[in-house]
């Protein structure tokens, strides 16, 4: 694949980056217009991205990728790392999603954050996130990607803890940060393995090295597992999923942009980008599938039990990303479908989060769905946009989620053998649960009876908030059809992720049968939810006489208890032992030396009698001793 060059890629990153720095450094003077600058920066980046897309579509499939060399970053002996940007078919999907959805969320935030005195800082952080995320998807090597990877981690930390005057929110930010660090260990290991095995950390260099067969399958599996660990941390997959629910402490636009549409999908990007590793590392690929399958059920089960609207959506995000990770683990057939689900999910989940934000805005920041009910009449636009997102996520045709999720289920069934049947059944079960918990959210929020607090006066949000929601809901209606019509997205991405042109494997189930099964699954989920939540009145506080399973699901399937008892408490014990050893052994040795010197000095200074004659004697003896020594040595 020959790559052209472009001199405009850097503007994609530079504009939001400079805007962020400007907003942070300019101080309070910019409080009145800071949000406009931030939004304009994001929008400019989106316009640049549209130009790039236009240029890209003007070239042939094989030569669509372009690079821009910025500077030589590291140059040590034969090892050279360039800061080079790479925009190909895979990156452009992300770039458009990040800048497009990002700009809509900027616009939404102007109104959503209008009462916050720190709105300028908020926009600075959002711009920082956009810049870092673009660097992540535009880097041409694992090391460049790493910089963006850490950048989005930082932006995520700053934004989750944006209201850090509340200690619980600050703790949530720290939790996300720590969980991400665990994943980052994986990424740094992957970089090291790539360097040792191939002497290069660029995607191209690694791909060529693998093609030349310069790495053992053990090394490739290790590298795949390390990449998976990184993806697991960033994308909140099992077993590093615990931070995502708490990350909802951040302002709702942040949850929509970072923790639904873009940053948490970076793991899917990383795995798709490293397809050349996973295609040659079957064990690591199997691990990817297992992680995806576990997480998609894990998130869905948590989603069923949550009364907090944002946490229910967060659990749903976890589960949907599980679908994507599962798809990436299914090899060349899955990457395009993972990307498709990622893009459609970016639209409908961001739209639903903005809808949730709109509901909270009207309900005095109440997040408990048991305090909602019957909001469809007072918030018609929010209801309509949220409803379209809902239809998209559960997979009702012709909405976006139907196309993308259906393809994943189909690919899972066609994975072959018993593996295919198990994965297919898991994805179908996931679809049932998704339909159930999303219907539950809809019913509890917009239908039924009013359960509002007496102080609540729900009202529709201003147009600055509703317009982004409307645009995103249009995306949730149309994107699925646009992408899947004639396998458009799959063919578009094929030169990047599917270079080997695998033959079409025998299909276990015809696409029509899969669609039928998926729709049946959705129908089952919806009917159970209506029977449980539509027909009966919903108590204003969560019932306590529930089975042990419900209690476990409400506690996030004991994820925090597990982490606390397995990692935190033993870790604390080890720390205590180490602190004791430090105090007794290390400090003991250090102060022992000091005490010894002190005592020795005390004894020695007794020779200082003050008698001049004794000093003279000592001088004489010393001189005699030195002279004797010289004589003994020379003679």
């Amino acid at each position, binding site marked *: 694949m020959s790559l052209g060059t472009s001199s405009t890629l850097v503007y994609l990153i530079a504009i939001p980056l400079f805007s962020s720095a400007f907003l942070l450094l300019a101080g309070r003077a910019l409080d009145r217009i800071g949000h406009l600058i931030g939004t304009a920066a994001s929008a400019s980046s989106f316009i640049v991205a549209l130009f790039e897309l236009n240029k890209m579509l003007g070239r042939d499939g094989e030569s669509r990728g372009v690079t821009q060399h910025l500077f030589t970053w590291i140059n040590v002996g034969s090892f050279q790392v360039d800061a080079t940007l790479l925009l190909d078919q895979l990156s452009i999907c992300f770039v458009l999603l990040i800048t497009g959805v990002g700009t809509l969320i900027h616009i939404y935030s102007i109104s959503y954050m209008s009462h916050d005195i720190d709105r300028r800082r908020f926009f600075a952080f959002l711009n920082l996130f956009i810049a870092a995320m673009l660097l992540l998807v535009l880097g041409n090597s694992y090391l460049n990607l790493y910089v963006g990877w850490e950048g989005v981690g930082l932006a995520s930390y700053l934004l989750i803890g944006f209201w850090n005057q509340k200690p619980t929110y600050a703790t949530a930010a720290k939790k996300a940060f720590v969980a991400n660090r665990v994943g980052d260990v994986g990424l740094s290991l992957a970089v090291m393995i790539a360097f040792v095995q191939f002497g290069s950390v660029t995607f191209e260099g690694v791909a060529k090295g693998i093609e030349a067969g310069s790495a053992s399958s053990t090394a490739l599996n290790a590298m795949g597992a390390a990449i998976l660990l990184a993806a697991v941390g960033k994308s909140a997959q099992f077993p590093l999923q615990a931070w995502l629910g708490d990350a909802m402490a951040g302002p709702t636009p942040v949850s929509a942009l970072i923790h639904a549409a873009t940053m948490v999908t970076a793991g899917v990007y990383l795995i798709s980008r490293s397809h050349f590793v996973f295609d040659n590392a079957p064990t690591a690929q199997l691990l990817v599938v297992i992680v995806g399958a576990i997480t998609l059920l894990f998130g869905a089960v948590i989603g069923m039990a949550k009364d907090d609207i944002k946490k229910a959506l967060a659990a749903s995000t976890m589960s949907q990303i599980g679908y994507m990770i599962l798809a990436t683990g299914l090899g060349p057939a899955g990457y395009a479908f993972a990307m498709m689900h990622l893009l459609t999910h970016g639209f409908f989940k961001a739209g639903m989060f903005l809808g949730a934000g709109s509901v909270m805005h009207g309900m005095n920041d109440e997040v408990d769905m048991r305090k909602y009910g019957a909001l469809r009449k007072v918030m018609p636009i929010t209801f309509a946009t949220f409803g379209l997102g809902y239809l998209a996520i559960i997979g009702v045709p012709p909405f976006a989620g139907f196309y993308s999720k259906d393809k994943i289920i189909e690919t899972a069934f066609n994975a072959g053998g018993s593996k295919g049947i198990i994965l297919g059944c898991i994805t179908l079960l996931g679809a049932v649960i998704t339909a159930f918990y999303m219907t539950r959210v809809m019913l509890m929020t917009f239908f039924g009876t009013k359960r509002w607090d007496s102080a609540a006066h729900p009202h529709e949000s201003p147009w600055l908030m509703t317009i982004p929601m409307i645009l995103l809901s249009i995306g949730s209606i149309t994107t699925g059809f646009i992408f899947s019509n004639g396998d458009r997205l799959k063919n578009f991405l094929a030169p990047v992720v599917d270079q080997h042109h695998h033959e079409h494997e025998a299909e276990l189930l015809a696409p029509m049968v899969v669609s039928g099964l998926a729709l049946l699954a959705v129908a089952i989920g919806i009917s159970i939810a209506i029977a449980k939540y539509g027909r009966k009145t919903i108590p204003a506080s969560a019932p306590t006489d529930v089975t042990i399973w419900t209690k476990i699901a409400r506690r996030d399937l004991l994820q925090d208890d597990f982490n606390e008892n397995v990692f935190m408490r033993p870790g604390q014990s080890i720390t205590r032992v180490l602190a004791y050893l430090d105090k007794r052994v290390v400090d003991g040795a250090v102060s022992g030396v000091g005490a010894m010197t002190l005592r020795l000095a005390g004894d020695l*200074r*007794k020779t*200082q*009698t*003050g*008698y*001049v*004659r004794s000093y*003279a*004697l000592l001088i*004489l003896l010393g001189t005699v001793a030195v002279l004797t020594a010289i004589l003994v040595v020379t003679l």
Partner: protein
Amino acid sequence: MNPMNYIYLSCILFSLGAAGVLLRRNAIVVFMCIELMLNAANLAFVTFSRMNGALDGQIVAFFTMVVAACEVVVGLAIIVTIYRSRRSASVDDARLLRL
């Protein structure tokens, strides 16, 4: 005469001087003993100069005399000052700089 005899004399003078410094308490006497040691050294220098046929030792002897003269000036001044403040010239009495 054998030049070694001068060396022996020098050693005896030096030992007398050293013993005086260590044993006597009167600062003036201690001082004179130091002069004795310096002159013993001078004698040795001059003798070695003679033995080696070089003039270096004689020159050093002059230097020693100059240094000794300076030392006498400073030393006597100190002794006089101590005597004025303590009414004693005993070196054992001036032992405030100690533990």
